[in-house]
């Protein structure tokens, strides 16, 4: 004869306790799964976002320099004076019209620089010649910069024909601080 139930109705205290314990365990494990998933997802999306900003930054630098005519030692762009150095690169690009034709003796200027007040930010700013198809813009390329350096093959930067770019982007997650190292060497004609 069963000693757990009387007349087949209701639960004994021990059954109830076991049920509550099982439910509690299931709840804890499920919550843990979701918490882990949330953390992992957060960590992965942070990593991907950081990587993407690094790729975008290096591709912008590559794109700007591939079309560049020369490095400028200094320039005033949109009213702000800049000087090329270890954290700033100023490039002069031939201006082109909307049809893609070169505009003779007209040049656009692009500056890529690490924000002096917030070193995690890398900006690009463009000043364009009259008639140029490029837009006067200021864009944030990355706000996860850990390390950025432009090194030139000539100490007189305006005479340099090669620039080495080292960029490391990183952003802390709850668990780690993943970093993405990127590098680029650019050769310029620099007439």
């Amino acid at each position, binding site marked *: *004869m*069963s000693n*757990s*139930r009387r007349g*087949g109705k209701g639960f004994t205290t021990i059954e109830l306790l076991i049920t509550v314990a*099982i439910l509690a365990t*299931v709840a804890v*494990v*499920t919550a843990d*799964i979701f918490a*882990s*998933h949330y953390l*992992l*997802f957060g960590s*992965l999306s942070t*990593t*991907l976002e950081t*990587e993407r900003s*690094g*790729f975008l930054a*290096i591709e912008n630098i*590559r794109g700007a320099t591939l079309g560049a005519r020369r490095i400028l030692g200094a320039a005033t762009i949109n009213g702000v004076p800049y000087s090329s150095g*270890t954290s700033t690169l100023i490039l002069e690009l031939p201006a082109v019209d909307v049809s893609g034709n070169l505009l003779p003796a007209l040049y656009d200027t692009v500056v890529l620089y690490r924000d002096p007040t917030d070193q995690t930010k890398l900006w690009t700013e463009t000043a364009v010649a009259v008639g140029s198809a490029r837009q006067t813009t200021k864009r944030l390329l990355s706000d996860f910069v850990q*390390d950025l*350096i432009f*090194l*030139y*093959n*000539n*100490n007189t*930067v305006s005479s*340099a*024909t*090669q620039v*080495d770019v*080292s*960029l*490391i982007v990183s952003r802390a997650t709850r668990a780690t601080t993943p970093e*993405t*190292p*990127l*590098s*680029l*060497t*650019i*050769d310029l004609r620099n007439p």
Partner: protein
Amino acid sequence: MFHSRRHGASGFTLIELLIAISILASMFVVIAASLKISRIAQQSAHQALAYGIASSLLEATAGLPFTELQNRATGTPLGIFPPHGTWEVKTDPNARSASNTLALTGTSTAISGISGALRIPTNAFGDFTAEAALKVPTTAPSGWSAGIVFRTLDFEHFYRYSLKSDKLLLERVQGATTTELWSQPASLATSTWYRPKVAASGANFTLYLNDTQYASVSDATYASGILAIASGGGTLLSADDVIVSSPSSLSWNFDTTNPGALPAGWRRPWIQDLPKATAALTIADWNGLSGIKKITAQVQWKEESGIKTIEITTLRSRY
């Protein structure tokens, strides 16, 4: 009457088993998916870096005269001087200035006698004054050397001021030819800090050790290039108090950098940031024509899924 679920209150019910299996399956799916995404993210980062390295290898040849593009199967980079060996800041109780040093913790296959080298993060200089405190460990092989390479264009074009166990030495490396420009017998010990210094002005180089002038040498082969710390003979190396006093005033004692890292500007992302990677530049005649060169940059690295390769090729004409 008998209990309908269990006999003797042991074992699980079907529903309990199903719940347990579901929980385990969910955990497995979540962890597997996360690992997969993590791996994909890491691989895309590796791919971006590998592409950057390959394009740097090619870009660096664009500025070289055609005559410098000699056929090569060795893979040594041209027109660029990337990090060689593994470098990091280490805590050293015997640091020249407490408490950290810049250490070469792993050497690479020697190129032009260089087992490890790291560029000092400055622009390329013609005239300069630079010094560094250097020390090789007691375990250094007998043929060890440590020093400063300067006016460096790449691993085949540079000057090297070296300290060896039995002499001080200035050499010029030009392709496969190494020319001794000056040497003087000396007795140098391992595990001892020495401070070589080079002052370059035009074709004249003045060489010092621990503030004592040892030589003034002239050579006009290379007018300008980058500065680097280098080791040879397969030895590891420690560096401290690196000072470039002209034309800019720069110095590094590595004491504010966390051990295991490199100071800002010293880290050049390269193959050491990829798992088990190699980078190679090869040059060959295109279709048998010596006036057109086929230049190929290849980066290989190892992922869990196997060896990955990025290869970029360009043609360069003499005409």
